[in-house]
C-alpha cells in the first residue's frame, strides 16, 4: 500500500511540474466540448424549435386555402410569408426564391382548390345522405384534378423534406375531413330539423383518441429529450478522457528509455504494486477531467445560450461508470506505451486510434444513424459502450442495474489491454 501511495504522489508531482501539459489536458477537451455543443446546436434544434419560413401563395382565396394557411400558422415551427416588400407573393416569385436558396419551401394553393374540396364534400354528403334517407341534395359536379404545388430547396435534407410533407398532408387531410363531416352533419341535421336535441357533433366524436407524449423513463418528472448539450458534452468528455492515453503512453516509453523503469524494476517487490499507483493516479485524473466537463455542461453551457446538461439522479452509478471508463482508457494507454518503442510511434497512433474509435463509437454522430455494418463495428469500440452507459444514465434514468452489461464489456476491454501489454513487456525481457 505504501508503494502504491508513494507512486500516486510521485505521479501527481510529475504531473504538477508540467503546468502546460496539465492545462492542455483540461482546457483542450473543455474547448472541444463547448465548441462542438455550439456547432451542433443548430442541427439539433432543426428538429425541435427552429422556425421554418414557408412562402405561401394563395391563388385560391377560398375557405379551404384560408383554413390551411391558418392551421399551418398555428404550428409553432412554421412561419407563413404571404407578402414580400408589401407585395403579395406570386407563384413565379416564390419558385424563384426557393430555387435561389433564399427560402427552403414554397406552397402554392392554385385557384379552385377550395371549390374542389367543397364539391368533393358535397358528393360524399349527398351519397351518405341518400343512403340514410335524408331529403334534398347539395350542389355537386364532376370532380376535377387539383393539387397543392410544393417547391423545396434542393439542399434541404430528405428527413426534413419528409417531415414537412407529412405536416402539410396531415393538415390537408384534416381540413378535408372537417369539411366533409360538416356537410354531412348539416344534411343529417336538416333531416332531423324537428328534433329539439343537440346536433350530431361528428367532429368532436371523431377526436376520441389523441396523442400525448410522456417520458419513457421510470422517473416521470424528468421530461428529457436529447439536444446538442446532452449529446455533445458526455460524448466529447469521453473523447477527452480517452486522450489521457497520450501522457500515459509517453510516460511509460520515457521511463523505459531513460532507465527509470530499470531502476523501478530493480526495487524488491512486485512491479504490479507500482503499476497500480500509476494507474490509480491516471484513473483519478481521467475521472476529474470528465466531471469537470460535466460541470461545464451543467453550469457553463447555459451561459452560452445552450441547454443545461442533465446528469440524471443515479450519481453513485455515474461515479462507478466513470471509474470503469477511466480504467479502460488508462489500460489502453498502458497498452500503447508497451507495444510501441518510441513516442514518435506511440503518440500519433494513440491519438488517431482514439479519433477512429470515437468515430465508429458514436461520439461524432449517434450510432443509430450509421450504416448497419458500422453499427456492428461500433461494438468493437470501448467508447461506444462508454457512451451507451452514460446515455443510459442521463437520458433513460438508468442505474447500475441497467448499465452493468456495458461496464462488464468495458472491464473486458481493460483486461484485454493489460494482458497484451503484459505479454509485450514479458517478451521484451527475452
Amino acid at each position, binding site marked *: 500500500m*505504501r*508503494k502504491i501511495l*508513494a*507512486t500516486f*504522489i*510521485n505521479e501527481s*508531482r*510529475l504531473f504538477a*511540474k*508540467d503546468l502546460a501539459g496539465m492545462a492542455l489536458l483540461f482546457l483542450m477537451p473543455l474547448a472541444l466540448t463547448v465548441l462542438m455543443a455550439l456547432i451542433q446546436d443548430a442541427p439539433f434544434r432543426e428538429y425541435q424549435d427552429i422556425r421554418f419560413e414557408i412562402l405561401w401563395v394563395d391563388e385560391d382565396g377560398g375557405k379551404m386555402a384560408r383554413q390551411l394557411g391558418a392551421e399551418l400558422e398555428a404550428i409553432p415551427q412554421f412561419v407563413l410569408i404571404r407578402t414580400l416588400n408589401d407585395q403579395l407573393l406570386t407563384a413565379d416569385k416564390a419558385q424563384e426564391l426557393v430555387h435561389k436558396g433564399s427560402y427552403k419551401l414554397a406552397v402554392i394553393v392554385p385557384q379552385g382548390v377550395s371549390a374542389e374540396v367543397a364539391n368533393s364534400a358535397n358528393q360524399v354528403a349527398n351519397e351518405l345522405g341518400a343512403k340514410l334517407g335524408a331529403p334534398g341534395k347539395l350542389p355537386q359536379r364532376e370532380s376535377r384534378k387539383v393539387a397543392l404545388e410544393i417547391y423545396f430547396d434542393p439542399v434541404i435534407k430528405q428527413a426534413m423534406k419528409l417531415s414537412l410533407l407529412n405536416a402539410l398532408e396531415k393538415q390537408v387531410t384534416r381540413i378535408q375531413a372537417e369539411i366533409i363531416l360538416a356537410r354531412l352533419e348539416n344534411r343529417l341535421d336538416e333531416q332531423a330539423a324537428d328534433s329539439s336535441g343537440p346536433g350530431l357533433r361528428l367532429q368532436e366524436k371523431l377526436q376520441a383518441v389523441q396523442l400525448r407524449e410522456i417520458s419513457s423513463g421510470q422517473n416521470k418528472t424528468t421530461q428529457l429529450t436529447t439536444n446538442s448539450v446532452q449529446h455533445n458534452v458526455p460524448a466529447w468528455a469521453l473523447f477527452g478522457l480517452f486522450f489521457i492515453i497520450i501522457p500515459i503512453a509517453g510516460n511509460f516509453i520515457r521511463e523505459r*528509455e*531513460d*532507465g*527509470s523503469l*530499470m*531502476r*523501478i*524494476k*530493480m*526495487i*524488491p*517487490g512486485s512491479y504490479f504494486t*507500482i503499476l497500480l499507483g500509476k494507474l490509480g493516479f491516471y484513473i483519478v485524473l481521467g475521472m476529474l477531467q470528465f466531471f469537470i466537463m460535466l460541470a461545464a455542461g451543467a453550469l457553463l453551457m447555459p451561459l452560452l445560450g445552450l441547454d443545461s446538461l442533465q446528469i440524471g439522479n443515479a450519481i453513485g452509478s455515474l461515479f462507478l461508470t466513470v471509474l470503469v471508463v477511466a480504467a479502460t482508457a488508462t489500460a489502453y494507454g498502458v497498452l500503447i506505451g508497451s507495444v510501441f518503442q518510441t513516442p514518435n510511434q506511440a503518440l500519433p497512433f494513440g491519438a488517431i486510434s482514439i479519433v477512429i474509435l470515437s468515430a465508429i463509437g458514436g461520439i461524432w454522430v449517434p450510432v443509430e444513424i450509421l450504416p448497419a455494418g458500422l453499427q456492428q463495428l461500433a461494438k468493437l469500440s470501448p467508447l461506444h459502450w462508454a457512451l451507451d452507459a452514460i446515455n443510459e444514465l442521463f437520458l433513460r434514468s438508468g442505474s447500475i442495474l441497467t448499465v452493468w452489461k456495458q461496464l462488464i464489456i468495458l472491464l473486458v476491454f481493460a483486461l484485454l489491454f493489460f494482458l497484451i501489454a503484459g505479454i509485450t513487456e514479458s517478451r521484451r*525481457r*527475452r
Partner: protein
Amino acid sequence: MLQIQQLEKTYKNAAEPSLQGLSLQFSDKSIAGLLGPNGAGKTTTISILCGLVKADAGKAFLLGMDVEKEREAIKRRIGVVPQSIALYPTLTAMENLQYIGRLYGLGSTILKERINQYLQLFGLEKSAHKAIRYYSGGMKRRANIIASLLHEPELLILDEPTAGVDVQSRNMILQFLASYNKLGHGIIYTSHLLEEAQQLCDEIAIIDHGRLVVQGKPLVLMQKQQAQSLEQVFLQLTGSSLRD
C-alpha cells in the same frame, strides 16, 4: 560475489549474439571491473544479473544466489546504477530520492537521514531542491548513484558511472566507491576508462564479442602481458580495430 557460467544471449533480430558462453567470477567484497570495447556484452551481462533480460543459456549467481530463481532476494541486497540517468528530470533530487527510498520501504526518519547524508557526501545538499534537468552532467551522475545507495546494498553494480563527467566529479565518485568498499560492500562496475579501472579495481575481467578474454588482478595482468598500463593490456588482447 559473482559467478557466471557459460552465459549466452542473442537478442531477437540481432545479427550476432551478445554473449557467447561467457564465464567469469569475482571474489567477495572486492571492487571488480567488467571491461570491454563497445558491443562486448557488458550491459547485457549487467541486465541479466539484474533480471531485466533473460539469458538464453548458462547460469549466473550474485552473492551466491541464482539470478533467475532468487531475483527478489537479490534485489534486496544489491543496488544498480544504470548507465543512463534514471531519474525524473522534472523532479528535484530530493523528490526523486524520496520516491525511490519509499519504494524501498524506508521509513520517513531513516530516509530523511540517508538522503541528507548522501546529498552532503556527494556535494549536492545545496541543489537538493533543484530539478534534475538543471543539473550538470556530473551532478546528475552523482544523484544517480545516490538513488541506488539509499537502501545501503551489500553489492553495488554500476554501469559506466563516470561516463561524461568532469575530473572533479569522477574523482569524487571513485573516492566514494573506494570508501564504500572499505565498509565491506562489494562493487562491480563497467567502464571504458582503463586508467580509472587500473587505479580502482582489485580485479578485472576483459570481455569481447560476448566471451571472456582475460581475468585477474590489474598488476598481475600487466606483468603477464609485459605492458605499462591496463590500456596496453586491453589493446593487446582486444585489438585496435574500431568498434561501433
